C-alpha cells in the first residue's frame, strides 16, 4: 500500500506518481490522506490500480478515469468521474452536481445522494445511485445506464437519446421527450447485474424504466414547444 498525504505531497506530485503507473505496475494499492476537498485528485488515471481517498474531494476527482478503481471515503464535489472511460469509482457519501457527466464507460457508484445533472450527456457509463438524484439528471444522456434506488428530481432524462434510466422511487417530473418504458427481461438482467456490482440489495422488479420517446430525434416544427 502506497500512502500519500496530499497536504504534504501536493496535487501535482500525487497525480504524477499515479500517472507513472503502468499496466503491469506492482504498486496497485494507493491511499490518499487529507484530501480536504482538493480538486482534480486522481484524474486522468490510466492503469489498473486502486486508489482510496480518505476524506471528501473537490471538483473532478477521478475525471476521465481509465482502468483504475477510485474509492472516495467521503463526499465528492462537482463533476466526479466526468468523462470516465472505464474502471470503477465509488463514492461512499454524497455527490455534487454533474457526477459522471459525459462518461463513456466504467461504473460510478454513489452510496449517498447525487445532486442535479447526474449523468448529464452520459455516453456509455453505468451509474448507480443508492439514494436520490437531483433535477435535470441524465439531460441529453446518449447511452449507458442510470440506476436510482431512491427518488429522482424534476425533468429526468430531458432530451435524452438511448440511455436507459431506472428509478425505484418517485420521479418528480420527466423532461422533454422522456417517457416511462416497459421493463423487459433483458432490462431486469442488466439491472440485477448493476445492482449486484454496486452492492445494492434492491430488487430489479421494484424499478421503473424510463427512456427516450424518440420524438425529438429529427427536427419537426410540430414539436417546437418541446425545444
Amino acid at each position: 500500500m502506497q500512502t500519500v498525504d496530499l497536504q504534504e505531497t501536493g496535487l501535482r506530485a500525487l497525480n504524477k506518481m499515479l500517472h507513472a503507473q503502468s499496466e503491469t505496475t506492482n504498486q496497485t494499492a494507493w491511499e490518499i490522506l487529507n484530501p480536504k476537498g482538493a480538486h482534480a485528485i486522481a484524474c486522468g488515471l490510466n492503469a489498473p490500480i486502486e486508489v482510496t481517498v480518505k476524506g471528501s474531494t473537490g471538483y473532478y476527482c477521478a475525471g476521465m478515469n481509465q482502468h483504475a478503481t477510485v474509492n472516495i471515503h467521503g463526499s465528492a464535489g462537482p463533476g466526479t468521474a466526468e468523462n470516465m472511460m472505464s474502471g470503477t469509482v465509488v463514492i461512499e457519501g454524497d455527490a455534487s452536481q454533474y457526477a459522471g457527466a459525459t462518461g463513456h464507460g466504467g461504473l460510478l457508484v454513489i452510496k449517498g445522494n447525487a445532486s442535479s445533472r447526474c449523468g448529464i450527456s452520459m455516453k456509455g457509463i453505468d451509474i448507480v445511485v443508492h439514494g436520490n438524484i437531483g433535477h435535470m439528471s441524465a439531460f441529453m444522456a446518449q447511452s449507458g445506464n442510470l440506476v436510482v434506488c431512491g427518488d429522482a428530481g424534476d425533468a429526468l432524462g430531458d432530451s435524452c437519446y438511448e440511455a436507459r434510466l431506472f428509478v425505484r422511487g418517485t420521479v418528480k417530473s420527466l423532461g422533454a421527450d422522456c417517457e416511462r418504458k416497459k421493463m423487459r427481461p433483458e432490462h431486469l438482467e442488466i439491472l440485477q447485474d448493476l445492482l449486484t456490482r454496486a452492492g445494492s440489495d434492491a430488487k430489479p422488479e421494484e424499478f421503473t424504466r424510463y427512456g427516450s420517446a424518440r420524438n425529438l430525434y429529427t427536427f419537426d416544427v410540430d414539436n417546437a414547444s418541446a425545444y
Partner: protein
Amino acid sequence: MNQHDPKNIPQTTPRQSATFSPDVNSEIRRAAATGIYDIRGGGAKRSLPSFDDLLFMGASISRYPLEGYREKCETSVTIGGLHAENPIHLDIPITIAGMSFGALSGPAKEALGRGATAAGTSTTTGDGGMTSEERGHSKTLVYQYLPSRYGMNPDDLRRADAIEIVVGQGAKPGGGGMLLGQKISDRVAEMRNLPKGIDQRSACRHPDWTGPDDLEIKILELREITGWKVPIYVKIAGARPYYDVTLAVKAGADAVVLDGMQGGTAATQDVFIEHVGQPTLAVIRPAVQALQDLGMHRKVQLILSGGIRSGADVAKAMALGADAVAIGTAALIALGDNDPKYEAEYNAMGTTAGAYDDWHEGRDPAGITTQDPELSARFDPIEGGRRLKNYLKVMTLEAQTIARACGKNHLHNLEPEDLVALTMEAAAMAQIPLAGTDWYPGKPNTSY
C-alpha cells in the same frame, strides 16, 4: 391630349422596398411554407465594418521601410509559454480554426492537416473528436474541448499539442450546434455515441462547469491530466470581449481565441448568424485592452478569427494587437468549396457558386462538407493540402509585404499607429484615427 387618360400618365419605376427586399420576402415565403427556421452554414453575410475599412499608411520620412525580399521580416509565433511545458512554435501566425469531422469529410480534414503542416502552422479538431487522419497529417494539432464532448477521450487529449476549451463561437455566441441526420454516417455516429441518421444536438454550455471560477478548476483538471505539458486555449465568441478575455486569463488560459461574427459554423439558424455577436473589427481592441490591463498582452496570446481572408487582414489584426489569426471559411474556399466549376450542380440545388451554404445537408459537390462517400471521393486531400499551403504562403507573403512597407522586421511589430480608418464606424470600433485626422469617435481628451 387627355391628361386623365391612364395611357398618358407617366409610369413610375417599380420600386422594391428596402425593408421588404426580395431576400426578405423569399425568407418569409420559405418560413410560411415550412414552419422551420432557416439553418445554414458559414458566417454573417451582411455587410459589416471590417478590416477593409482600415488602411496602412506605409513608410515615408518619419518611418523608413525595409527592403522587400532583402531585409528579413519574421513571421513566427510562440503560443502557450505562460504555463505549458511545451508551448507551440509556429512558422506563421495563421492557424486553421476548429472544424469537425462530421461537418467536414475525412479527406477534407486530412487536407487541412497536410496544408497547415506544409505551411508550418497548426490545425484544429472540432465537435466530433479527433480522427487518425488529421492527427497523422497534422504536425501541430489543437484538440477542441467542447460542450458536447463528442468523441472526447483522454488518449486523444494526451496526444494533442494543445487543448482549446470552446466556450463560444462567433457565428453563434450562446448557441449550440446541430448536425443533421443526413450527415451522420456510421463512422460519425460511432465517434459520437449516437444512433446513425438522427439529428445530433450540441449543447451550448459545458455539462460540468459554469462560470469563470469553475473554468479555472476545469483548466486545472485538464492540465493535471496532460501533466502541464500542453497549452490550454480558451475560445470565446465576440460577445463581451473585454470581460470574457479578462475572465479567461483569470481562469488560467495560455491563449485566447476570439471569434467575431463573420466566423463560420457548420450549421445553425440564419437568424443567429446574422443577428447575434459583434463584428471581428469591433472585438479586438477591447480584448487587447483587457490583456494590457492585466499585464498579459503578448504573454497570453490572442488569436483572432472571423472573416480573415488575406495577408492584409492578417497584418491589420496583428497591428491591432493580435498575436495570430485563425481561418476557417477561407481555408475551405482554398480547398475548393464554392468553386464555380461546380456551378451546374449548385444551380440544380437552387443556389450558385459563392452562395452555397447548406453545408448541413451534406450534398456539397466539392466533396468537402459532406459524409457522402461518392461526393467525398471527388476531393483529393493531397491536392487540397497543396492548395491550402499555397494560400497560406500567399497570405504570409502579403502580410510581410505590408509589414516591410511599414518598416517592421516582424509581423508582431505592426502597431495601431500604422493604420488609418476609412469610415467613422471603423474608426470608432478599431480606435484608429479617421484618415486625414488624428481623431476617432470616443477618443479621450479630445476637443472634437
